[in-house]
């Protein structure tokens, strides 16, 4: 008898992702497709998965392992203690001075002798701080030398650290159970083995309460009620769909005045319960400003998409933990996705951010793209233009901003316009002038790519019609700008370029066609060059004015020979 699990609310979906990740030995990713290794055991279908109850064989161990690895404390601490030991031993040799000083006392003034005295105390302090949050290890270490003793003999500290590593390795099983409990209690509260009163045989408790009855189908059923979640299976006897499943989800048994007849028991089946109980594994943890926050990408188009998007998010997280993470994710999702349904799925994806250190509701980032916008972002040519911006940044004082996520954000918010381009052009000019306030690696063809995207976006998405000037024509004008700048350089009038550019930029900022044309015509006439006829359009059409105007300005500021020649 197979159990079917359908996509549902976001927490349940996170449970499905978690359940699949815990059982990751049953599927693999092949050519960006998720493929089941044994469909009799686990089958991933469009909006549901089904599995045989045999899947629960060994589930408790996998569940614990997953939590243990996700927490990662045990491995990290062993590694850290070993590092401490090594550094303390290195301290005898002067050649390590520089390294160690930089590692522990970066901004402090200290010489080798001082360092030899300071370092053991520093490491001892750090170690003691760790023990404060690690009761099990502290208890097992029993006697800890005093600060004074360490001061006299650093070998005592080395021995202490070595003993800590030994204990942890010897009693791994115990640490494994204890860490899983600590970690999951933070997420789930005090359900089952997570209860504070339970301080041994946690694994056994979980095995007996979940794995065994699930496997053997021995769970006692409620005679009256169906599961409130799946509405298919009979509920488990005496189950409370309560905040023990999640701090922010379900029902608090104390708040019984919210429920009918003051009965806080909401029926839930054993399968839905274990799915909900797996949601931690569906989350992606990220260290943000010193504390762990969790992310989950929710979409309800298909199980495969759901899993795939969360895997992509996780992958991205490992590469880059910048503040633009979410935008990077959406941008990447849009730029990378080849899936034919992407257009539709992009419309109903949200990312949830959970901060489990307080009981606040999760933050939901929803990007809710319209179909036309998703199409726009997915369009090959637009994608190529956007990809050019992928490594572009600018800095204002010390704050760094990435252009691609900003652009995509503006597209999503319908706020992409020429002001952004104007700002970047100003920063580009400031950077050229060796400004201390601004820095950027933007080049003029980046500005021009942004101009084309902005122009397309404004006409297609905002205006709902075709561009007044073709993309080809914009690049043509860009090249004419380049030609004029070369002409000016040839005539030793390079210094004029800047003042002309500023005038053009100002005219573009306030949308003053006359002012712009005045400068343009004067410049061309002064150097005896024919004026590009495309500017005729700029005169009569405000939209064309901006896109053509910036094209020309970008070209004029450019130093390349031809469009794209300097493309990285």
């Amino acid at each position, binding site marked *: 008898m197979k159990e079917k699990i359908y996509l549902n609310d976001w927490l349940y979906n996170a449970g499905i992702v978690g359940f699949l990740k815990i059982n990751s030995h049953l599927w693999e990713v092949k050519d960006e497709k998720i493929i089941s290794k044994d469909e009799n055991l686990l089958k991933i279908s469009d909006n549901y998965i089904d599995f045989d109850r045999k899947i629960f064989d060994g589930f408790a161990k996998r569940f614990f392992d997953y939590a243990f690895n996700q927490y990662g404390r045990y491995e990290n601490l062993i590694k850290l203690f070993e590092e401490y030991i090594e550094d303390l031993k290195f301290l005898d040799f002067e050649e390590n001075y520089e390294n160690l000083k930089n590692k522990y006392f970066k901004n402090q003034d200290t010489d080798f002798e001082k360092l030899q005295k300071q370092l053991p105390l520093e490491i001892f302090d750090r170690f003691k701080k760790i023990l404060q949050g690690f009761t099990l290890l502290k208890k097992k270490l029993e006697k800890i030398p005093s600060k004074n003793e360490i001061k006299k003999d650093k070998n005592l500290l080395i021995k202490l650290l070595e003993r800590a590593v030994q204990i942890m390795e010897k009693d791994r099983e115990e640490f494994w159970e204890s860490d899983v409990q600590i970690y999951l209690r933070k997420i789930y509260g005090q359900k089952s083995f997570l209860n504070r009163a339970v301080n041994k045989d946690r694994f056994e408790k979980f095995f007996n309460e979940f794995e065994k009855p699930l496997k053997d189908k021995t769970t006692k059923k409620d005679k009256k009620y169906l599961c409130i979640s799946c509405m298919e299976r009979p509920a488990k006897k005496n189950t409370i769909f309560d905040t023990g499943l999640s701090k922010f989800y379900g029902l608090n048994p104390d708040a019984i005045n919210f429920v009918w007849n003051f009965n806080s028991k909401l029926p839930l089946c054993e399968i839905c319960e274990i799915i909900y109980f797996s949601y931690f594994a569906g989350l992606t943890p990220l260290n943000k400003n010193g504390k762990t926050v969790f992310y989950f990408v929710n979409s309800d188009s298909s199980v495969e998409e759901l899993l795939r998007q969360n895997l992509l998010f996780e992958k991205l997280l490992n590469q880059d933990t910048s503040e633009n993470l979410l935008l990077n994710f959406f941008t990447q999702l849009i730029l990378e996705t080849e899936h034919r349904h992407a257009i539709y799925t992009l419309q109903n994806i949200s990312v949830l951010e959970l901060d489990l250190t307080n009981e606040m509701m999760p933050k939901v980032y929803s990007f809710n793209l319209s179909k036309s916008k998703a199409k726009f972002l997915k369009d090959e040519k637009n994608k190529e233009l956007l990809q050019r911006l992928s490594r572009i940044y600018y800095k204002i004082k010390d704050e760094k901003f990435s252009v691609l996520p900003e652009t995509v954000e503006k597209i999503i918010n319908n706020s992409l316009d020429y002001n952004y381009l104007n700002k970047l052009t100003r920063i580009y000019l400031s950077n050229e002038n060796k400004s201390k306030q601004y820095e950027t690696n933007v080049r003029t063809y980046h500005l021009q790519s942004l101009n084309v995207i902005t122009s397309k976006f404004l006409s297609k998405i905002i205006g709902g019609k075709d561009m007044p000037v073709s993309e080809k024509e914009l690049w043509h004008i860009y090249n004419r700008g380049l030609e004029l700048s070369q002409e000016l350089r040839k005539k030793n009038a390079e210094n004029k370029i800047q003042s002309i550019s500023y005038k053009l930029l100002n005219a573009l900022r306030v949308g003053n066609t006359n002012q712009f*044309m005045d400068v343009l015509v*004067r410049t*061309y*006439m002064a150097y005896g060059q*024919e004026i590009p*006829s495309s500017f005729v359009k700029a005169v009569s059409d405000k939209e064309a004015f901006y896109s053509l105007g910036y094209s020309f300005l970008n070209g004029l500021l450019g130093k390349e020979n031809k469009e794209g020649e300097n493309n990285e």
Partner: protein
Amino acid sequence: MRIKILIKSNKVPFLYRHRVVSLIKEALKKSDSDYKDFLYNNQITKPFSFNLVFPQKRQIQTAKIQIDENFEIEDKIVISDGYFSLFVSSIDYRFIIGLFNGLKRLKTFQFSSNTDMLVNGEKISWQIKNISVLNERPIKKETVIFKTNSPVIVEDRDDRPVLFNEERFEKELNEVMDRILKSPHIKGKGLEKPLRFKPLVMKKSIIKHTLKSFREHTGKPVMYLTGNSGVFKLSGHPEDLKILYEVGIGTKTGQGFGMVEVL
């Protein structure tokens, strides 16, 4: 925007305006023929005016001018070994761009053809030497003192000229300008507020002018136009005054009348 076109030629007849119109048409045809058709295939107000300035060192002579196969008259010409300056003012950048690009390609303009505009049987050609942009005077106040560069022509509904000293001049001027400003390619709406006209140093001037259609219709070689030249004070909305400054005042601006300068 106003530009100055430097032309090299040793003689220029007083009867030059219709040839400047041809020069403009030819230049536009070369660079932006759609726009040329727009301007000249329709009866619309031209968004520009011009005037030709003779060099200071000059002689004025009388010469035989063959206007076309049918007409030859005696009229004045200017002789010089220097340059003539053609000033053009326009509100439309498309016109300026078209004219500039066209003149760049044209380089030389045949003032006379085999049968038309021969001076003492001789052909004249103009060489386009240089084109430069002039600074415009900003107009921000409600009153401006203008000086005419070429005579201002104001005509009533029956095409009769109206002179500056006539009582109805201000009313007719308002009607003409209101109509012109209403053209979509000029402003698209009429005067913001009525113009007030006050002559300072004005005189009546009679200008000889010719057009092919006129000759064919009337069988006469030239027409005599009555215009107003000099210095006058004009009040109105600054935006309107600025447009007047750019497109010229009165009628027939596209034929070289009504170009003014701010004093």
